[in-house]
């Protein structure tokens, strides 16, 4: 790589790496070490094609999404996992219950598969339509739809507060857990 391109790459990383790392943290369910690993892999790919990459940020984001969906194992040091905490609520009425729900939901998001979490982040954090998610991940729209559906079903099974009104609790637990285990 020529000197000027090398400098461009460094400048891009300096400017955008924190934003990209935050996205990676969501994709990895809050594991910052895994997130750094994911971002490094995406940046390595971008660095190798730097002269041909027209939109570096879009390229790195897409690489992270696909990498997260395709990779079968994150190499990480299990003892060093750090999980960002949810922010304190502003003290409004009912804020305590809301915060508890968010904490439970964030924990449940961490239990989704990598593919499910990528779809959830793209749909509900990036607010992308299903067709764009499918294009980013390189899969059919139907797969995105079914993955999102299964993800929400799993979240409902893991967080009892999300259950549909009037549905018996036992019917919502198809994952082999009992309600007591999940709440504990």
């Amino acid at each position: 790589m020529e000197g000027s391109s090398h400098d461009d790459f460094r400048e891009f990383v300096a400017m955008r790496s924190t934003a990209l790392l935050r996205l990676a943290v969501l994709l990895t369910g809050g594991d910052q070490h895994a997130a750094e690993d994911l971002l490094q892999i995406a940046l390595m790919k971008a660095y190798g094609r730097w002269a041909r990459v027209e939109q570096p940020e879009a390229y790195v984001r897409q690489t992270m999404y696909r990498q997260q969906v395709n990779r079968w194992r994150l190499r990480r040091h299990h003892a060093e996992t750090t999980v960002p905490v949810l922010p304190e609520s502003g003290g409004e009425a009912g804020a305590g219950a809301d915060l508890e729900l968010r904490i439970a939901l964030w924990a449940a998001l961490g239990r989704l598969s990598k593919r499910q979490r990528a779809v959830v982040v793209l749909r509900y954090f990036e607010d992308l339509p299903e067709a764009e998610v499918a294009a980013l991940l390189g899969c059919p729209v139907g797969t995105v739809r079914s993955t999102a559906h299964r993800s929400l079903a799993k979240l409902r099974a893991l967080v009892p507060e999300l259950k549909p009104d009037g549905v018996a609790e036992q019917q919502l637990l198809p994952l082999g857990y009992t309600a007591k285990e999940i709440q504990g």
Partner: protein
Amino acid sequence: MTTERVEEKVRETLHAVALDRVRAPGDLAQQVVRRRGRRRVSQAVGAAVAVAAIAAGAMLGLGGGVAEQGRTARPAASPAGWHPWQSGVAGFGERGCLADGSALYCSGSRYDIAKVDADTGKRLWTVKVNGEGDGNDHPFAVRDGVVYAYRNHTAKHQPNGDYAGGTDLLAVDAATGERLWVAEMPQDDRTGQAAMLIDGAVWANTPSVRTMSALDPRTGAEKWHHTWAKDVVCQRAVLSGVPYLLCTPDTEEVHDTDVFRLDPATGEVHKVTTLPGRQQLVGTSEDRMVLAGAQDTAGDSLQLSTIDGSGQRTALPGRVEGHAANWTVVGDRLISVSWKGKASAYSLTTGRTLWTGPVGVMMPARDLGASLASPVASTRQQVVYFFSPSGDLSGLDLRTGKQLWHGHVDTGKPRPGFPATPQLMLYEDVLIARNGSGISSFLPRIGD
């Protein structure tokens, strides 16, 4: 709660995560450039095939020479009691298998180890998976009635004891499947250099990433350990039961490689030699390590050399093409396959190219993450076999590169999340081909 409300709660939660505390390290660009440099050298020489190379190298001692070139392959013979079998049961083979005589030890999504009778395909015993069975790993050695494998480590600090990354080294009684001991590894490295057998011990990368420990094979108790300096990376090799470290500074610039020999009984370290440049271990051939050196990080062409246990280095004349789809050391030969389907054999004694020709199987696309299985060679028949993810098989004459046999086996496809590269193993002259959870055992009809 309605689906719309659930979606809204998910949105709120994702946006409420305290990401403002997350900051990228200041030297990230430098880390990326350095990591990429290491990876390119590693990819060029196919470090992942080192384990297969060691197994094949130990198995074969080739004479070679002009007199043998006109010979045809000997007829394939099946072991007594063997008959062809096929298995497609999900859960016990996706991660890979190890063939050891008439036994096959496999790992899959449901079992960390499943012992299979290689004669019949019948399952003998299983060790249930610990957490998720999603690794690219399989039992890596069997010795003195003990099987050594990996499993996911159960993190104690996680709610419900969920898997949160990490690996255990697992020792199991080969006769019964009874667990003997478990040792926690410091990272998820399950490649060929994570743990190896040395004289009287299992030499494993534990308890830290910069430490190799000799563990008692029956109890897992530490006999000795060796830790190297910070900012140094060390490759590991074993020659005739003696452990060696090849160490180089962990920097973007290319530095020389120091070779150390460790006493397998005490761990005492002796510096053997210093090699020029960054050397990548390709495999071992009898009592020699086969190394590929790249003077830059591109790795387009590589300088091969061998080094014996005393540090005697032989630089092979000429350079070989880098970025191969597969590299394997077979006796005195290095077999490489290019992504365009060209197989080449190089002599590790003279450095000369012995033959080049079509590998005879459909090559996978380079960017799909899959490659050919590591080739295996039949000692008796002098045939080297190749297996592609498409199910194609090819047998080339090890002496001339001429295709003697080709076949096809439908083993299915790997499940998403599991290794996309298939596996080929030998049980005497019988081939065992695995792709995903599909396993086929059959006799290639050569020389009939």
